[in-house]
């Protein structure tokens, strides 16, 4: 039972991280029609810059400053590079952000090296946020913080106690993601600048004719999207690993999220992120394969079949595949995406 709850929370937190990333991507795509291939690279930049700032000033300043730095870098890229290719069409836009991933990857490896860095979360976030204690006699109970050793073991051999901690970093990740989601939503719906951005989405020339500086708006949006990715990077880098391959590890998944959710739909991205986060987390925990399934069903399989690697494949081994499988299925049965509105 506690396994289910912890896995659920883990999946949710991973999904929310995916959402932090895919929301920035969706915003940039909705506002500017540009699919930012380098979005995961901004995530990586956030982690590395956050690491450096954290080692100088501490984690909390890093959490604030690193995303801003990434946002500025993103805005500068938009102003000096991306802007030049708008006139060429959608393909060159995608290509230039693709080229950027190369350059960022090489620069990161150049400046910080090729080995993984230890980006430690702050004192406050080390250790569990809470611990679920499953006592075979007393049932399920929750303890804030870490559970002391005595509570996790029992002198009595007949009593079984299992302690499942839920890391504070993960909890923090969920908190930041939710705060970010709410603030972005409020910003878009309630403020004047949000209104301008929404209008510039569909009618950039009109908005410009009304006196708003649309190129500046684009620069702002792109920078903001990059900054959000950078924020996710600080959190992700301190929770997971900070290494050069982190961009490639999460990049394709967020594109899947965006397509599955429906291009340009924030709520779709939210739904898809959470779904994929949950599916992957749960899948990794299961060691069931077709073989074990057959055994459970009482089917007798011959030895060659049992030894076939396809049959032996466990769900946990297949886990990295699942988002892409999901993508293919969605494209067959519901090409618009889960909540998509625009036909590409």
């Amino acid at each position, binding site marked *: 039972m506690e396994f289910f709850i912890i896995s659920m929370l883990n999946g949710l937190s991973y999904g929310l991280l995916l959402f932090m990333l895919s929301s920035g991507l969706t915003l940039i*795509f909705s506002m500017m029609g540009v*699919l930012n291939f380098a979005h995961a690279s901004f995530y990586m930049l956030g982690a590395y810059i956050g690491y450096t700032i954290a080692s100088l000033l501490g984690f909390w300043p890093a959490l604030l400053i690193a995303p801003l730095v990434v946002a500025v870098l993103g805005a500068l890229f938009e102003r000096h*590079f991306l802007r*030049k*290719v708008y006139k*060429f069409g*959608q*393909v*060159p836009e*995608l*290509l*230039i952000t*693709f*080229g*950027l991933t*190369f*350059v960022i*990857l*090489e*620069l990161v*490896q*150049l*400046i910080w*090296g090729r080995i993984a860095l230890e980006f430690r979360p702050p004192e406050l976030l080390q250790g569990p946020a809470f611990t679920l204690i499953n006592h075979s006699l007393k049932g399920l109970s929750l303890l804030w913080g870490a559970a002391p050793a005595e509570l996790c073991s029992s002198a009595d051999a007949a009593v079984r106690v299992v302690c499942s901690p839920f890391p504070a970093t993960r909890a923090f990740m969920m908190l930041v993601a939710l705060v970010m989601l709410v603030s972005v939503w409020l910003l878009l719906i309630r403020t004047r600048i949000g209104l301008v951005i929404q209008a510039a989405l569909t009618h950039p020339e009109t908005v410009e004719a009304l006196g708003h500086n649309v190129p500046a708006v684009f620069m702002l949006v792109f920078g903001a999207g990059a900054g959000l990715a950078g924020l996710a990077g600080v959190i992700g880098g301190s929770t997971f690993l900070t290494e050069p391959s982190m961009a*490639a590890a999460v990049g*394709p998944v967020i*594109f*899947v999220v*965006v*397509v599955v959710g429906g*291009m340009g739909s924030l709520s779709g991205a939210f739904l898809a992120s959470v779904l994929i986060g949950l599916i992957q987390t749960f899948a990794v925990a299961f060691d069931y394969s077709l073989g074990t399934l057959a055994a459970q069903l009482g089917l007798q399989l011959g030895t060659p079949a049992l030894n*076939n*690697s*396809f049959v032996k*494949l466990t769900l946990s*081994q*297949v886990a*990295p*595949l699942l*988002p*892409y*499988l999901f*993508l*293919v299925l969605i*494209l*067959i049965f519901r*090409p618009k995406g889960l909540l998509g509105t625009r036909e*590409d």
Partner: protein
Amino acid sequence: MNSYYEFKPINVGRWLIWSLFALLLGVVPWLFNSSFSITILSQMGIAIIACLSYNMLLGQGGMLSFGHAVYTGLGAYLAIHALNSITDGSLPIPVSAVPLTGGLAGMFFAILFGYVTTRKAGTTFAMITLGLGELVFAMSLMIPEFFGGEGGVSGNRVTGAPFLGITYGPPIQVYYLTAVYTFLAVAAMFAFTRTPLGRMLNAVRDNPERVEFVGYNTQRIRYTAFVIAGFFAGISGGLGALNFEIVTAEVVGAARSGVYLLFTFLGGATFFFGPIIGAVLMVLAFVLFSELTKAWLLYLGLIFLFMVMYAPGGVASLIMMNLRLAMYGFLRRLWVSYLALGLTALVVLVGAGAMIEMVYHLQLSASLGSELKFFWVTLNAKGLNSWFGSAFVMLTGLGLFEVCRRQFVLDWSEIQENIEKEIKRREAL
């Protein structure tokens, strides 16, 4: 870019060009006859087929794929399995036909995956190909029977009965087989551009909606072209399997797909011969450039960025633009400008290159001390002098470059105007 110039040679010219191409393919291993060079030439042939097949999608069809390696890679896998089947006697076909099995595999998987892939266009298409590529790559580690696990699948091309004394042991024999396939594939893909389907594919690239209104099913056009491209991609993979005698999972990976994209675009997606240039550059970059400097991927990324911004038609478009200048007699005027631009750019690159090399040296070879050789100069990566010097060189170069560039832009626009006037004049005749 204003207009794309289409070079239309007269028929004699066409025969001449193809004969020259065939001659070149035949003669070049005599010019570069070390074993190493010959393998490079084979790799170029393989890359040419791969990039041309990729450009069928990108340049001719407007379909940006991030997963083309799936088809070259799966073609390679099937080919190596076919090779092993020849070895153990269960497949009685000549080794020369192995690339064709690769082609059939590529075609088969393109039929299988293509239906779902070509349902959408534009950015969504790109994302689908990315996802499928990751899917296949992830599967490659899960089904060792087909993918051979971590070590990949090996084969031996010196197998089966020798065909007219050809065993494919020596690299030169592999080269000539590759050359024959390359010539036939290039000719076939060029012929494709001259067929109704080829032309309608271009129409789909230009205006997919209008195509529907002249009676064509746009998706069907894309799907058919996708399958044909998959066939040629598979042939390329099959040749690669023969050449290296081993196929590992990276042949279906995202990195490989990215490389196809990068170099096809660099060579020029808007002209038929652009990807040929790109393929040659690809092999040179991987084999030679990577030996010259550890920073080569960074340079490549930067070159790509600048190409997208300033020359989206690639090297081929640069050549054609200058050819057009030459045809109208204006090339001589730009001679000096080009020289000036080239020299100042070189200065900038030297300065920037020195700094980049020093940083790389500190990162990767610090144990060797802080001195490194940069061309004929010894730099001290920890010395202020070297840094100041490089920065000074780069900035001076930048300043001079900017001056030359402005003058160049003025000259260029003036010349373009003159050419336009000349075209109108000739039209009126």
